[in-house]
């Protein structure tokens, strides 16, 4: 998979330091009913360090979730990639705050961050703030954030083929989350899929 030391996927937050040639993969899942203030900080301190962060949150009721992610590129030649997906309904409110900092002289940095949210109810709130602070020029950095709804055309397509609306919506959510869930274990996937029915 990567080069150097491979740190196994782990659930949870905290501060992580990644040294030269090391590779860190971090997945986190916030299931329904969990109000959380999750903070993840990653320091890339050795050349060639690499980090992959993936996460998802399902908030169908009155959860208060705050996710703060900081990835700090302190030295040249590091790579970071982040992908976060959330589904928010009920009266839940979710705040995502993600920052990529590229220090001066941290050239040849590649840093990517994506955060996508589905907002399902009139009373829920999503706030997302993806930030880039870049002090070096030879970099490739991008971020993207969206807040939106399930695609009506897709839904119509499935319903016209006899799939009940509830099932169709769950299928859509499974597909929306799949880039994050792809790397999780089968039991974890099953947990997430069964939690999705509470989102309707």
């Amino acid at each position, binding site marked *: 998979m990567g080069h150097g030391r491979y740190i196994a996927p782990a659930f949870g937050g905290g501060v992580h330091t990644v040294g030269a040639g090391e590779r860190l993969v971090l997945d986190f899942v916030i299931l329904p009913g969990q109000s959380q203030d999750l903070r993840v900080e990653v320091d890339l301190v050795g050349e060639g360090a690499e980090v992959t962060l993936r996460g998802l949150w399902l908030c169908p009721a009155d959860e208060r979730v705050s996710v703060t992610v900081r990835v700090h590129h302190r030295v040249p030649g590091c790579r970071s990639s982040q992908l976060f997906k959330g589904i928010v309904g009920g009266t839940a409110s979710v705040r995502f705050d993600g920052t990529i900092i590229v220090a*001066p*002289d941290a*050239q040849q940095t590649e840093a990517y961050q994506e955060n996508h*949210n589905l*907002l*399902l*109810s*009139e009373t*829920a*709130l*999503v*706030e*997302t*703030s*993806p*930030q*880039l*602070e*870049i*002090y*070096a*020029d*030879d*970099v*490739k*950095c*991008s*971020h*993207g*954030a*969206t*807040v*939106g*709804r399930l695609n009506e055309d897709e839904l119509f397509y499935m319903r016209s083929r006899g799939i009940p609306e509830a099932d169709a919506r769950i299928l859509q959510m499974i597909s929306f989350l799949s880039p994050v869930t792809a790397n999780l274990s089968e039991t974890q996937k099953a947990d997430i899929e069964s939690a999705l029915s509470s989102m309707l």
Partner: protein
Amino acid sequence: MNREEEDRIIREATTSEYKEGFVTDVEQEYVPKGLNEEIIRTISARKQEPEWLLEFRLDAFRKWRKMEMPSWAHLDLPPIDFQDIIYYAAPKKDADRPKEIDPKLAETFEKLGIPLNEREVLAGVVAVDAVFDSVSVTTTFRKTLAEKGIIFCSFSEAVREHPDLVRKYLATVVPVGDNYFAALNSAVFSDGSFCYIPKGVRCPMELSSYFRINARGTGQFERTLIVADEGSYVSYMEGCTAPMRDEQQLHAAVVEIIVEKDADVKYSTVQNWYPGDSEGKGGILNLVTKRGLCRGEGSHLSWTQVETGSAITWKYPSTVLLGDHSSSEFFSVAVTNNFQQADTGTKMVHIGRDTRSRIVSKGISAGRSQNSYRGLVRINKGAQNARNHSQCDSLLIGSACGAHTFPVIRSANPSAVVEHEATTSKISEDQLFYCNQRGIGPEDAVGLIVNGYAREVLSRLPMEFAVEAQKLLQVSLEGSVG
């Protein structure tokens, strides 16, 4: 390219001249330095203002005194001594020729390429309101515009001649205590433009304000108010320059725009205040509040800005989309070089149903400058089917500068769709190589690539501005090849 050559080119570029940096030697009258209620009364009296406006100013001043300077921006803002600024400076009027413009002032604007003489311009091109320090010197084409019922004059004149209109709309978009600098402006504002387009009228020419800071030790606090009544259309442009000085000068403006049902306003700015020298000495502190209110159904407001000047820019032209089906756009190119700092962006607040907004921001940083995009897209509960798309790109030229993106998206409506994307990169070696091997020198190649990069925004500018803006981009970045 090797480091030495790079350094040489950057050195050459940064010493290139700011050609608007001259001073006009004209007799001026000032109010004393400092800020207190007495000064505000003096300014108000000198402008022969009605009582309600004096009260408005004093109320703003009292609010301002309780406020603190904002520190959230990604700027290294020097402490400002508000008692060390002259809040009002006006060229002395020659008593014998009250109707005529002082030839020295006319010459100044001539030198800046701003036509004040109507005969010299092709009919129906641009009407200009020229503001010199604290007063408006002249407004052209007033008669032609008046025939259509359009009011275009200096703010002070509007207070005298159309007090009802001014009173009805003043501070309805930017409240007195909105923020620190807006409160300061509300207390001491001098002159600016007032513009009213009546129902169903399409303004036949571009309206334009030109702001010039000339006097030493002064600040400029202009106030502009644009009202587009039902079904009207206007395209408004704003330009600005200042002399080269070692000291920093303050410019704190407020612009308010009201767009009624089905009206359409296009607001363009080419901001070219003195940016300071290559050591970061001097320059204008440009701390500006601009906001539009799309009040009526189907109204539309479009912002286009090209920011190349100022030592520090703090500016977020924003739109409140109150009317159903209203829409707004924000197109921006911000260039920073040497020690310039810019923290600029927009706010789109969706309140009405089916409201649409689009943001395109292109930041270019060179030298040792810091360039930030800061934005807010807010979808309120009632904003059914609201839609926003934002794109913010940054281009870095040289390894000592910074480019930052701070967007906030807040959505409370499940039928709304909001998208934001941003990229940061440098001019690619491949693009440069491609140009070089076809005989285009590195400097021209950078100019070409930057202009291409900013094209989406530049193409939105009115013709007269587009040419100037392209040249400005070239000059601001000359040679800063990375």
